[in-house]
């Protein structure tokens, strides 16, 4: 009875990623609940959301599609398409981080600084900044995955690393949408 159950188990690395996602969610849950508590208190300043964040949202959503397509082409062994889509995801992710940075600069130029009284801006820099760090981490993984397509003595058709990559990428996408909607709605 147990022996059949053994074989159907999820790959341990994939499972580890899911727990890690839970852990990351707790971190952002801590920060967004801090935001909610603080926004009800005196001395709170609202900020205007830069248009740029809408563009970055579009980019990240597109990159989710490209990585899903990349996974699909990998499963179909069309490696050239796979590599192209992986590269597209990489470029889109990089563009996302750059636009986030531009968004921060836009806010900074409009007087939203770290110093002084508290407000949504200070939270925005930290929460979006931490999210961008998680995207950057994903980019590092993407780069190493990309490089591994070209080096090594034999080619691996193991789908697990690609699946883990795409799950993480979808996660940072969904996380971003949650954070963005949170800021527009609550903020």
């Amino acid at each position, binding site marked *: 009875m147990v022996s059949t159950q053994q074989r159907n188990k999820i790959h341990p*690395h994939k499972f580890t990623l899911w727990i890690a996602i839970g852990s990351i969610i707790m971190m952002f849950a801590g920060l967004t609940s801090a935001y909610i508590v603080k926004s009800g208190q005196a001395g709170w300043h609202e900020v205007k959301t830069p248009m740029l964040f809408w563009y970055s949202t579009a980019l990240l959503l597109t990159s989710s599609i490209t990585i899903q397509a990349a996974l699909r082409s990998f499963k179909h062994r069309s490696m050239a398409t796979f590599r192209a889509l992986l590269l597209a995801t990489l470029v889109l992710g990089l563009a996302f981080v750059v636009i986030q940075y531009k968004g921060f600069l836009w806010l900074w130029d409009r007087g939203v600084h*770290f110093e002084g009284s508290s407000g949504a801006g200070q939270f925005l820099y930290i929460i979006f900044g931490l999210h961008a760090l998680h995207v950057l981490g994903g980019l590092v993984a993407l780069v190493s995955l990309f490089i591994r397509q070209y080096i090594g003595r034999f080619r691996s058709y193991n789908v697990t690393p690609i699946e883990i990559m795409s799950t993480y990428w979808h996660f940072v996408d969904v996380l971003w949408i949650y954070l963005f909607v949170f800021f527009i709605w609550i903020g």
Partner: protein
Amino acid sequence: MNNESQSHVQEGAVTHDVHHNGNGHDGHHHHKETFITKYIFSQDHKTIAKQFLITGMIWAIIGALFSVLFRLQLGFPDESFPILETFFGKWAKGGRIAPEFYYALITMHGTILVFFVLTAGLSGTFANLLIPLQVGARDMASPFMNMLSYWFFFLASVVMMSSLFVSTGPASGGWTMYPPLSALGQANLGSRIGTDLWITSMALFVVSSLLGGLNYVATILNMRTKGMSMTRMPLTIWGLFFTAILGILSFPVLLSGFILLLFDRNLGTSFYLSDIYTAGQALPNEGGSPILYQHLFWFLGHPEVYIIILPAMGMVSEIMSVNSRKPIFGYMAMVGSLFAICVLAFLVWAHHMFVSGMNPFMGSVFVLLTLLIAIPSAIKVFNWITTIWRGNIRFTPAMLFSIGFVSLFISGGLTGIWLGNSTIDIHVHDTYFVIAHFHIVMGVSAFFGMFAGVYHWFPKMFGRYLNNTLGYIHFWVTLAGAYLIFWPMHYMGLAGVPRRYLDFSIWKSFNQFNSLNQMISVVTIIVFAVNLMFVFNFFYSMFKGRKLRTQNPWNSASLEWTTPIHPGHGNWAGEIPEVHRWPYDYGKDGRDFIPQTEPIGANESKH
């Protein structure tokens, strides 16, 4: 790796190979092992466990030494001790501890013992050692991440250690690091670079325990051997499992709290700061709330005490059953109560904040939830007692420490019921009563669980026994000492003696405790000496202890004792054994014990 460094490493392997094993290497992993890959950057869970244990022991000596040294001053406030100047230099001029440095000492004592010893040293050691061995896996789900987990801990240790030597002193805002004291460099010498190092170190520590925790959960859920269903796992594994879950869900929240604190300290944000005047000058910070930090901190801080105690509970359950030659009483109740504690751990954090000015109605909700923890705790105590009840008890040092654990857990748990009530807590808050409570219930008793584990699994770790006589001396002196040190503190706390004060001599009403204070200090020194003796026993027995001759020295039914005496990387020489029963078949059908690997017989009775 090029040839030159390869040969250098090989040389190292010859000179440093301390317990070379002839029969241990299994046939599955043929990769070449050098000294570096075997003992330093090892991915073998057993080696990583030893690394955690020994690093934890070094920290324990430092952390305990701090308490001995400040106890000297607390017990004898009028005396000066040249040894204090030897250790602390300018912080103890003329052999008397400077008051601001006393804060640094208690801060580091708390941080070191709570995080570096009882979190990393305890679950780092035993989760790594026991999870693969007891669930029947060759290693962790990701041995590489497991290795990273240790090295992040090592890095955190280096940063924390270096903070002890900076010229403005280590962090001194208390182990809870409440702002505004910890957020403003001008508030306190220790709140300068010392606190930045403290936060950096703790951030690395969080990364370490997350990497570890992810691995523990993934291994337990995914890597169990054939037949090892969840309800056939030893309670050790259940304890470590819930510990890992608690850590995974609560440490990230602490990290977000620390990130905000770091911004407040260095970039001028106002998450925790508002309306502050220092030296007649108003700070620009506005709208921040220090209570926010307390919420974020205690959302980890309370689960943290269960992170400390659950591994000890698991190990004690296992050791008590093995050494009573009886099945554990109420296995499912034990698992259920661990689960209940794990859930409640997230719902009680604000009981640390009854005097922070929170809404009294909220306080009463947290009182109720806090007192609910008494139920699973009582179930566990009842089951431990009924497990040894009429058992065939073997009083090994591990068993004694387990019994000592239960005794301390009861004594400390009862005062938890007092403190969980906000009406009493408001009175004794920040007094020695609180000190006594948490030192007994999570400090000393977690240490007892850890000692029990070390005595019990030392043969598995090193293929030798610890010296028994030294073990008995260690147990009795530490048990008597723990009660002598912390029991009187309850009375001091009820009389209102506040914690974190260096000198009470001008506070006449507390002078009645002078001789009690002296007694506590003297006992502290004795207990510290006896525990140094344990450290001696540990390292001596590692090389010279009595050799293990049989695979299964305690006649235990669980899986770790089916491995060779010196298991290689991969644990079992051949196939991983299949499991057919739970790990507590002791004294069944006239047999002393039946190993988990034995199939159920035709005429076997049900348990």
